[in-house]
């Protein structure tokens, strides 16, 4: 079989307009793949998987107490984003991050947006990510969210939507970098003929973003990456980023608050830490301020942070903008703070706490996806069309009992990209998570992580639910 037989079907396909007709930007790739032949493509697919395993590009499986690591299944057929599409997405993402940061700064200080009733105050106060102790905080340069991974999807018509914002500790950028490394050795000739935007700038940009947070008078600030440790599912990424930036990877037990500063325990005594890229959730970061049972954080960190003696990326409290109910107000934030319309629309969203919308949701559970407001990673979800009547009834009860906690969205027909399943090309649904850094300027890493549902017909792309990944190629402008 080769690509001539591949039928995109009744879906928006990222590589094909219709059977036998690749999109213009995908032509060199498809030609090359056809020339290689299926056997060779399969061989390279296998080689790429082995390379990732040897490189130890893995994630941990939570439930497994053996500490088993797996590689994120990797498919070597890349997803291609045209230069025109990318120009719009990049602009739209910058606009969104800019507005979200304005919102965070506002909601933890004057709360103008609440006073002007653009967003109902009770929604913000009831969000699990809203942290009272963060009121009045003044993060350096007024930036709260420095690192974002925004999930985008495309529907049957090729329209882009923002699916959700991840403003706490978005994962996956290490796969973007490592997948690219493997892809370059898998298809060097295609890289040679196609102009694809590089992704390797990310670690330097991240370091710049973090250094930007240190007080100006420090000539050589100490930046660290804070990880929960080797059992965390994203541990590989934490160590990878620290290594690529050349900074220390620390755990809570390496840190201590003394003399009003955050310090780390070294072989030569205590050493001051100036900037933390934290990969620990707010609740766990300081047992004195938040969860007293947390073993991962540093007692007293909040006090040092409040005094401005250590900077944290992302700032504590950013999780409030991660809430799925607050997400539905982002277009309003953009209008309110920037006086612009959102360039990338949200997926239409029904809020269950509004009686009208709730009755619509309850009447249409078989057509909608219901998500709980504070969860991520594909947990706490109901995919209506694929659920049993009993599951739908269970969610109906949950929604009635705690309407604030639920939103519903129409089931989008996600766009597809061919992937190798059982030695054949098969259209698989994808989403896209670009990574955005906000330091002196806003930087959007070209492309992002394309997650792919590697089960036939599945719409769920999360790695915890059997998804995999693809390299994402953003074509350079002519």
């Amino acid at each position, binding site marked *: 079989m080769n690509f001539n037989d591949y039928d995109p079907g009744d879906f928006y396909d990222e590589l094909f307009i219709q059977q036998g007709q690749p999109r213009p930007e995908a032509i060199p790739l498809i030609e090359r793949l056809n020339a290689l032949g299926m056997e060779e493509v399969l061989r390279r697919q296998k080689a790429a998987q082995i390379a990732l395993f040897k490189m130890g590009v893995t994630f941990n499986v939570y439930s497994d107490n053996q500490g088993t690591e797996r590689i994120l299944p990797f498919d070597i057929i890349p997803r291609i984003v045209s230069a025109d599409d990318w120009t719009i997405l990049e602009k739209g993402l910058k606009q969104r991050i800019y507005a979200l940061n304005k919102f965070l700064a506002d909601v933890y200080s004057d709360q103008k947006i609440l006073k002007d009733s653009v967003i109902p105050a009770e929604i913000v106060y009831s969000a699990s990510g809203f942290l009272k102790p963060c009121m009045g905080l003044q993060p350096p340069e007024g930036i709260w969210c420095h690192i974002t991974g925004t999930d985008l999807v495309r529907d049957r018509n090729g329209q882009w939507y923002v699916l959700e914002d991840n403003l706490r500790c978005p994962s996956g950028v290490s796969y973007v970098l490592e997948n690219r490394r493997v892809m370059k050795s898998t298809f060097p000739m295609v890289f040679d003929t196609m102009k694809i935007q590089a992704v390797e700038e990310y670690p330097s940009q991240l370091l710049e973003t973090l250094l930007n947070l240190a007080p100006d008078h420090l000539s050589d600030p100490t930046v660290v990456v804070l990880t929960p440790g080797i059992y965390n599912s994203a541990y590989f990424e934490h160590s990878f980023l620290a290594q690529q930036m050349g900074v220390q990877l620390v755990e809570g037990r390496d840190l201590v608050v003394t003399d009003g500063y955050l310090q*780390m325990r070294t072989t030569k005594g205590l050493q001051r830490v100036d900037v933390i890229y934290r990969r620990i959730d707010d609740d766990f970061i300081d047992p004195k301020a938040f969860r007293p049972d947390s073993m991962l954080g540093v007692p007293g960190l909040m006090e040092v942070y409040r005094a401005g003696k250590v900077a944290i990326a992302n700032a504590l409290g950013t999780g409030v903008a991660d809430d799925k109910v607050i997400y539905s107000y982002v277009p309003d934030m953009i209008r309110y703070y920037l006086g612009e319309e959102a360039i990338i629309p949200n997926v239409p969203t029904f809020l269950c706490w509004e009686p009208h919308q709730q009755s619509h949701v309850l009447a249409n559970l078989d057509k909608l996806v219901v998500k709980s407001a504070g969860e991520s990673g594909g947990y706490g979800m109901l995919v209506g069309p694929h659920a049993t009547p009993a599951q739908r009834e269970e969610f109906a009860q949950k929604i009635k009992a705690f309407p604030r906690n639920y939103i519903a969205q129409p089931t989008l027909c996600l766009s597809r990209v061919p992937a190798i399943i059982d030695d054949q090309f098969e259209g698989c649904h994808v989403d896209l998570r670009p990574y955005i850094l906000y330091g002196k300027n806003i930087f959007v890493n070209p492309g992002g992580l394309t997650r792919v549902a590697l089960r036939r017909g599945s719409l769920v792309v999360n790695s915890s639910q059997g998804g995999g990944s693809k390299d994402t190629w953003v074509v350079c402008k002519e």
Partner: protein
Amino acid sequence: MLSRVADSIYWLTRYVERAENVARFVEVNLNLLLDSSSATTQWEPIVLTTGDLPLFRDRYGEATAENVIRFLTFDADYPNSILSCLRIARENARSVRDVISSEMWQQVNSFYLMVTEMAQSGHLSDLATILNFFEEVKLQSHLFAGVMDATMTHNEGWHFGQIGRLIERADKTARILDVKYYILLPSPKDVGSTLDELQWMALLKSASAYEMYRKQGAHRISPMAVAEFLILDREFPRSVRSCITRAERSLHHITGTPVGNWRIPVERSLGRLRSDLDYITIEEIIQQGLHEFLDNLQSRMNEVGDKIFTTFFSLETVA
């Protein structure tokens, strides 16, 4: 450097070295078994070498070849089996991946995968496979040391790794000499009696010392000369003295104190030990009793290990 990181690198190299030494112990005994002339191959002394004989007896009972090999190589519940050593080494490497070189990580990772694969394959009873396996373990360990030497900056972390490896190696050389010597020559008055040359050759081989021993001055094999070579040779890389001398150099690289001086207790302990080894003669050692000497040596090395912990790694006592 973070205390935790220094600690992890120290144990990373130490456990890789330990796995290698376990492979050496077993391999040499297996080779003896294959020599029909030495009918009295004993397996219990090998377990005795590890210091874990009581644990072994509890779990396995009789020290047959198969029991001992299973215990020392693939027993996941025994913390010093080759499998466990590699698991701990890899875990340590994983926790400091950002500090060591990727090549080191990849080497310890594939080393670990090789050992787990072997453990799962169930080919334990096949002598050819198992001998091949021990050969491979030694090779992978050397590869790791070589990769580390060639790809990691010789900075503080590297020196901690050196200390871990060298202390472990000195300890194991001392142990194996102690046990073998005791079995072969139960009392000092036996020195000079007829010797089982094959056994002594095996002892040397287990420290990869046979060829080097032959090349240096005393070509003939005599118990005293073997003991002297393994304890006091200045140039042989597995001799106790050579290990201690280099460990001391690494320690002083870390602290910045010139060798021959001391500022902190660990420098004093290690310096004193090195100095004793510089000036003592094998005659003096035999006179005071080889076993007593080696026993004392091991407790002094343990003391050094403890002091390294309290000086550099212990999270509580950092000033």
